[in-house]
């Protein structure tokens, strides 16, 4: 005998009808389960958002291979290596260009045009003719960085830094600087905002004019490959050519390196997984209550079905089908609402909150799972139903 999940002409789609016929009950179920779904999605979004934020800069690097000090424990730690270590890199087969990148997270204080106070900012510096970033605004404005003490800023930085205020000048480390352009990057755990400048300006501001850029150690060597080169082969070639004190990573390996650090060593991951778990448990309990109440209200009807000659298996299928349909009915509005929530919170918290296919898949699987699981708890009553008790 066929059971119906979708309406069919052969058998009565009892689960479908049960779900849809009582509009008020449907609304309550959708609201209840939907909110739990929203909770889960928001937590998962945060988790992903933090990871994405911390990878924001890494993903924007314009190169296939990155060279950095072997003792760096994360992308954002200041641990530069001598520029000379890159000397042999251009000779390695497959290497098209080697671009040095200076970076600092602990030594540049930006005077905010918004409140006049000085704050630590993330700084990147490079040769303006060869900016190692994919950000279109950076490539467009880098020529302007040739002017002395010219900087470009992250207009998506945290508001208190005032980088989007339209100011034309401020101070870095007490020196006046000219703001000649902006790009769109966004903050992360390490930094509240980013400033980019030429290597020459960098040396001047960092060492108070005492050293030149060439003498300063660099944070990264960004390497572009000739078309058709095999990344692994070039990596091996570089490993052979460069000193042991540097580490050679493909861009993807660098992303994994940073992701591992965030996941294992910092707290963001567990917090949001826990939040999502809470959402899951809450959803399960709400869904259990919804299913249980519906079952309890219709126990005489189900007992009557048993009396008519339906076996327990059929009733179980109806209950599970109804649970699955509830999950689907609740998921869609929650998903849609979440898009709005992501937008709102993302704008306020400056976190890149996106709905991805993976998140949708995972959260839907979790939603379905929690509804089916709670149905499994509720069906004991149906199994135990004694049709004779209908009297």
């Amino acid at each position: 005998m066929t059971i119906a999940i979708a309406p069919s002409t052969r058998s009565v789609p009892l689960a479908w009808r049960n779900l849809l016929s009582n509009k008020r009950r449907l609304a309550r179920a959708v609201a209840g389960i939907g909110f739990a779904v929203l909770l889960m999605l928001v937590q998962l979004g945060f988790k992903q958002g933090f990871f994405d934020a911390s990878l924001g800069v890494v993903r924007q690097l314009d190169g296939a291979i990155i060279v950095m000090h072997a003792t760096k424990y994360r992308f954002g730690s200041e641990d530069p290596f001598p520029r000379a270590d890159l000397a042999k890199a251009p000779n390695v087969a497959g290497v098209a260009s080697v671009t040095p990148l200076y970076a600092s997270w602990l030594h540049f204080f930006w005077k905010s045009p918004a409140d006049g106070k000085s704050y630590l900012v993330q700084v990147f510096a490079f040769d303006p003719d060869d900016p190692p970033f994919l950000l279109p605004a950076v490539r467009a404005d880098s020529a302007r960085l040739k002017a002395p003490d010219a900087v470009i800023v992250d207009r998506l930085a945290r508001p208190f830094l005032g980088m989007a205020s339209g100011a034309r000048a401020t101070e870095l480390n007490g020196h006046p600087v000219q703001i000649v352009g902006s790009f769109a990057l966004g903050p992360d755990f390490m930094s509240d905002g980013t400033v980019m400048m030429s290597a020459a300006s960098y040396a001047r501001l960092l060492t108070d004019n005492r050293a030149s850029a060439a003498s300063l150690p660099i944070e990264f060597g960004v390497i572009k490959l000739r078309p058709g080169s095999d990344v692994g082969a070039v990596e091996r070639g570089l490993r052979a050519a460069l000193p042991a004190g540097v580490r050679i990573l493909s861009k993807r390996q660098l992303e994994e390196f940073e992701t591992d650090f965030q996941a294992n060593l910092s707290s963001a991951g567990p917090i949001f997984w826990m939040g999502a778990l809470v959402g899951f448990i809450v959803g399960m309990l709400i869904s259990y209550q919804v299913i249980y109440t519906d079952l309890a209200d219709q126990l005489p009807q189900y007992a009557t079905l048993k009396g008519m000659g339906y076996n327990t298996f059929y009733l179980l299928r109806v209950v599970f089908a109804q649970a699955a349909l509830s999950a689907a009915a609740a998921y869609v509005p929650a998903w849609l609402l979440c898009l709005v929530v992501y937008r709102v919170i993302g704008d306020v918290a400056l976190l890149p909150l996106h709905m991805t296919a993976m998140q949708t898949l995972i959260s839907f699987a979790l939603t379905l799972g929690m509804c089916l699981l709670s149905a499994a708890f509720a069906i004991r009553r149906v199994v135990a139903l004694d049709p004779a008790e209908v009297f």
Partner: protein
Amino acid sequence: MPFEVACRVLAHQKGRTALAIGGVFVAILLIFIELGFFLAVPQGGMLIYDHMRFDLLLVSKDYVFMAQSWQFPQRALAVALKVPGVAQATPVYLGDAKWQGAAGGPRIDISIIGFDPGSRAFAAAGIESRSAVLARADTILVDGSTRPIFGPLTVGRKITLDGRPMTIGGRYRLGTGFLGLGVALVDPENFFRIFPRRPSGQVNFGLVTLRPGADPDKVAAALRAVLPTDTQVLTRAGLTRQEVAYWTTKTGTGIIFGSGLVVAFIVGIMILYQTLATQVARQLPQFAMLKAIGYRNRALNAIVLAEAVLIMLLAFLPALGAAFALYIVIRRETLLPATLSPAELGAVFATGLAMAAASALFSLGRLRRAHPADIF
């Protein structure tokens, strides 16, 4: 009397009552957890300060938050000592160094706090007892909750800080707060050996303790009058306000965890209402019978309220227990010092009770309007 009736009613249908208690349990637990996360952020920011002894804090006027404190001249402390009511003005230094194992490996950022052990700046057991250790040359005390990436924190282990060989002299338990992944303590002599390029006349914090009976606000005002404009004076309350404001508003963690809390609150209230409304609606026949034998509406209200209170009481304690268990896990797995003070606990309880009572009465009112002929 209404409590007796409520007890009988709840005890009669154990299954349904258990479900109702379960529902309220979930709602309260959810709020506890999200509240714990939300409050943990400012608590994390204040963790180290909360373990330091001072009545007033001197910092640079450019102070942003603990890890970005800037510096101010040490002679301000000498000036402060002259102000009546000030008993002690102790310098505390803060710097970032690169920690590396003796055999090499990754160089990891660690925060170094320098202070005079004799000044009793820290109110933590593992620190006060180890002044002798701190006095040793090139020896550090390391916080036990320093993350595993730093390697084993065994006493006697040799490491380098910014290339300088040091020995781990001991461990203490306080917490790293939001200073970073690891914190170590040294005495001022060791501090300036680790940071030789640091100007010796500059400090990060001035811990001011007052004589007994002195009024912190009055002394603060007096200090502000005599101190140069490159320093500022913060009371404990003012410091807390400022630090918490930084973490919750400037960094956006407040918004993120706050939004989680708001969603949790909404969901929690919804569940609470739903549970109690169902509970009340189920008893329509009993209410009809009670009205028929002469009970007044007020009596029904009392019974329903009593039920709500009983359910809330029965659900609250288990939820509290579960929440605390979860807090332990959270504290272990994350840097967040999740916990709830008795005041916050009480607030959750009071709010929950109020919402439960409101839900119960409201749903009774709806029932009344829906079935005027039946029972009312």
